[in-house]
C-alpha cells in the first residue's frame, strides 16, 4: 500500500478539541503542498472555538472576532466537525486508532489550579474559570450559582482571567447589556450587590501578568472607582535593579498606570475596585455557616532566585479582609484524557515536542500527537498556539515521511460518520454550527448585542429543528 497523503489515499487525521489550537493544527495540515489530508475535528461541546467562545470575556468582542479566521479553515472541503462528541464517552482512543492514520489531542486546560490553603472549599469560594464559563454560557457550567448578594468579593491572581472576572463584577448592567454575556448571567449580575472588588497579586506591580491594555481598562470603568495602595505599587530595590539592567518600557508603563491609580480620589461611582500587591491569601475563614466570611492575607516581599526571577516570600505580617465571595485565578491545569499518557507533574499529556510518549518506555506512541495548552501548559495568548501547533505538525510530517503512522482498519470518512451517528446521534456538524451562529447573531441584533447565546444543548438542537 502506498503512503497515505494522496488523492487515492488521503491522510486521515482526527483532532480532539476544537479550540484555537485545533484550528491552527488543521490549518497547518491543509497548507502542506502535495499532501491530501482529511481532518475531522471533534469537541465535547456542540459548538466550536473552545475558550474563544467560553473563556474570552464577553466585553472583549474584538478578540472573539478571531473566530472568522477559524471559519475560513473550516470552509476547506476536506474538513469536518463533530460537535458534542466526547473522547472517553462516545469514542475511545481505540476507536480513533481504527479510523485514522494520526490523532492530535488539543483539549486545552480544562480545570484550574488550587490555592492549597485552609478554607478553600468553603461555600462562596470558587474557581474563577467556573465563573468565566458560567457568564460565557458554557452548557456544562450554566446551572452553577454564585452568591452575588455579597458586598465584597476578592479575585486571587493578576493574570488576564483575574482581570476579566474583576471587570465583569465591576461593570454596570448597561455596560454588560451590550455584550454577548449569557442572558442568565446578565440578569444575575444586574441584581448584584457587590460594591467592592479586591484583586490580589502575590508579587509586585512590575511582575503582574496582565497586559497594559487590560490594566488601563480597569481604570476606565463606568461604575467603579479603581485604586491601588501607594506603598504596594512603589518598586522594591530588586525590581528597580532588574529594570535598570534590562529596561522594559511595557513594564515601566504598567507600573506608571498602577501608580496613577494610587493617586486617584474616589469620584463617587457605586463600586470600588481595589488592586492589591505583595499579598497572598493564607486562609479563608468561615462566617459560621460554612461559607467564606473573611480572608487572611500575608504580606510578601520579593527575593531573586539563582536565575534572577523575582518570587514572593511571606513576611509573617498578617491582615484580614472581609470578603464574602472569593474567585481563585492562579492558573489553569490540564485534565488527563482516558487512554492517553499524562504527565501529572506539569498537568499535560506526556510528550516530546508534541509526540505523545508511552508512559513506561517514554518512547513516542505511533500516530498520537498533542498541541496547545495540553501539550505545554497554559501559557501565552491565542496566537501562541500557532507556532506550537506548527511544531507538532512538523513532527507529524517527519513521521509520515518515514512511514510512521497508524494502520487503521477502516479509514473512510463514511465509516467514521456511521460510528459517530450510532454513538452520538445528536452531534453537530459545522453546517449546523453556522446555522446556530446565524440564529444567535440574529437574536442579538434585536437587542443590539453581538449575539444571544444558546446555553443548553437541547435549545441548540431545538433551534436546528432536531429536538
Amino acid at each position, binding site marked *: 500500500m502506498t503512503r497515505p497523503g494522496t488523492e487515492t489515499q488521503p491522510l486521515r487525521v482526527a483532532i480532539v478539541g476544537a479550540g484555537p489550537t485545533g484550528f491552527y493544527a488543521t490549518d497547518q495540515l491543509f497548507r502542506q503542498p502535495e499532501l491530501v489530508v482529511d481532518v475531522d475535528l471533534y469537541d465535547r461541546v456542540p459548538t466550536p472555538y473552545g475558550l474563544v467562545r467560553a473563556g474570552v470575556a464577553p466585553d472583549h468582542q*474584538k478578540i472573539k472576532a478571531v473566530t472568522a479566521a477559524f471559519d475560513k479553515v473550516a470552509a476547506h472541503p476536506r474538513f469536518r466537525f463533530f460537535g458534542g462528541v466526547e473522547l472517553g464517552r462516545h469514542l475511545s482512543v481505540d476507536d480513533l486508532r481504527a479510523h485514522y492514520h494520526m490523532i492530535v489531542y488539543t483539549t486545552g486546560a480544562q480545570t484550574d489550579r488550587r490555592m492549597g490553603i485552609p478554607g478553600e472549599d468553603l461555600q462562596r469560594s470558587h474557581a474563577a474559570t467556573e465563573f468565566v464559563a458560567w457568564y460565557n454560557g458554557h452548557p456544562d457550567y450554566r446551572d452553577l450559582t454564585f452568591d452575588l448578594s455579597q458586598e465584597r468579593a476578592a479575585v486571587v491572581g493578576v493574570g488576564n482571567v483575574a482581570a476579566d472576572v474583576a471587570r465583569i463584577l465591576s461593570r454596570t448592567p448597561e455596560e454588560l447589556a451590550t455584550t454577548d454575556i449569557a442572558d442568565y448571567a446578565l440578569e444575575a449580575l444586574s441584581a448584584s450587590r457587590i460594591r467592592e472588588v479586591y484583586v490580589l497579586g502575590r508579587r509586585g506591580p512590575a511582575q503582574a501578568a496582565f497586559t497594559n491594555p487590560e490594566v488601563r481598562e480597569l481604570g476606565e470603568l463606568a461604575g467603579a472607582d479603581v485604586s491601588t495602595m501607594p506603598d504596594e505599587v512603589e518598586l522594591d530595590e530588586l525590581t528597580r535593579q532588574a529594570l535598570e539592567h534590562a529596561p522594559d518600557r511595557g513594564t515601566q508603563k504598567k507600573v506608571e498606570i498602577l501608580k496613577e491609580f494610587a493617586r486617584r480620589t474616589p469620584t463617587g461611582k457605586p463600586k470600588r475596585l481595589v488592586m492589591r500587591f505583595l499579598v497572598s491569601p493564607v486562609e479563608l475563614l468561615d462566617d459560621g455557616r460554612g461559607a467564606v466570611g473573611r480572608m487572611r492575607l500575608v504580606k510578601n516581599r520579593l527575593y531573586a532566585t539563582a*536565575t*534572577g526571577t523575582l518570587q514572593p516570600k511571606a513576611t509573617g505580617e498578617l491582615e484580614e479582609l472581609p470578603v464574602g465571595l472569593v474567585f481563585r485565578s492562579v492558573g489553569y491545569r490540564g485534565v488527563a484524557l482516558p487512554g492517553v499518557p499524562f504527565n501529572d507533574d506539569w498537568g*499535560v499529556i506526556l510528550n*516530546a515536542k508534541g509526540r505523545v510518549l508511552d508512559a513506561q518506555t517514554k518512547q513516542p506512541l505511533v500516530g498520537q500527537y498533542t498541541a496547545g495548552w495540553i501539550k505545554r501548559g497554559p501559557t501565552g*495568548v491565542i*496566537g501562541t498556539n500557532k*507556532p506550537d501547533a506548527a511544531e507538532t505538525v512538523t513532527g507529524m510530517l517527519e513521521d509520515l515521511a518515514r512511514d510512521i503512522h497508524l494502520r487503521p482498519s477502516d479509514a473512510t470518512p463514511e465509516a467514521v460518520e456511521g460510528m459517530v451517528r450510532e454513538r452520538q446521534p445528536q452531534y453537530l456538524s459545522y453546517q449546523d454550527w453556522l446555522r446556530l451562529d446565524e440564529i444567535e447573531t440574529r437574536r442579538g441584533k434585536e437587542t443590539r448585542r453581538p449575539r444571544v447565546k444558546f446555553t443548553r444543548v437541547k435549545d441548540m438542537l431545538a433551534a436546528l429543528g432536531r429536538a
Partner: protein
Amino acid sequence: MNIASLLAKKGPKVVTVQPEQTIRQALALLAEHNIGALVVVDREVRPIGILSERDIVRTAVRDEAVFVKTVSALMTKDVILGLPQDELESVGRTMTDRHIRHLPVVDQRRLIGIISIGDVVKAQRDLYRGEVETLQMELTEEHGRPGER
C-alpha cells in the same frame, strides 16, 4: 511564561553522568544522545556539576590522557540551577549575561530537567510570534485585509 512550560514538552529524558565515570564514557553519552552537555548528579539525583563539550575540548588540547580522567576532574562545579517557576525572561537574560548554555532544573534540589539557551530563545520567539499573530487576526477582522472585502 516559565521554565515548567518548556520542560512540559521536552519529555522526561535528561542524560546524566556520575562524577566517578570517565571522560570516555561521558563522550559516548554525548555522542549517543547528540547533545552538548551532561548534568553530573550524585546518588540522590542532585546536580553537583555540569560537563560540557567545551570543558572536554579545553583539557584535550593540552592533555593526551583526557579520556581516562574522571568527570569530576573536568566538570564545572559552580552550576546555576533553575526552578520550574523561573521566568523565561530572567532565565534568558541570566544565561546570556553569564554565558551559560545549559541550565539544569531542580525541584526540591533533585534534577527534573535541563534547558538550553536554544530552548529559551525558541520559546521567546514563539511568544512574540503568538502575540503578533493574535494582533494580526484582530486587526484583520476589524479592518479587513487589503484587497479583501
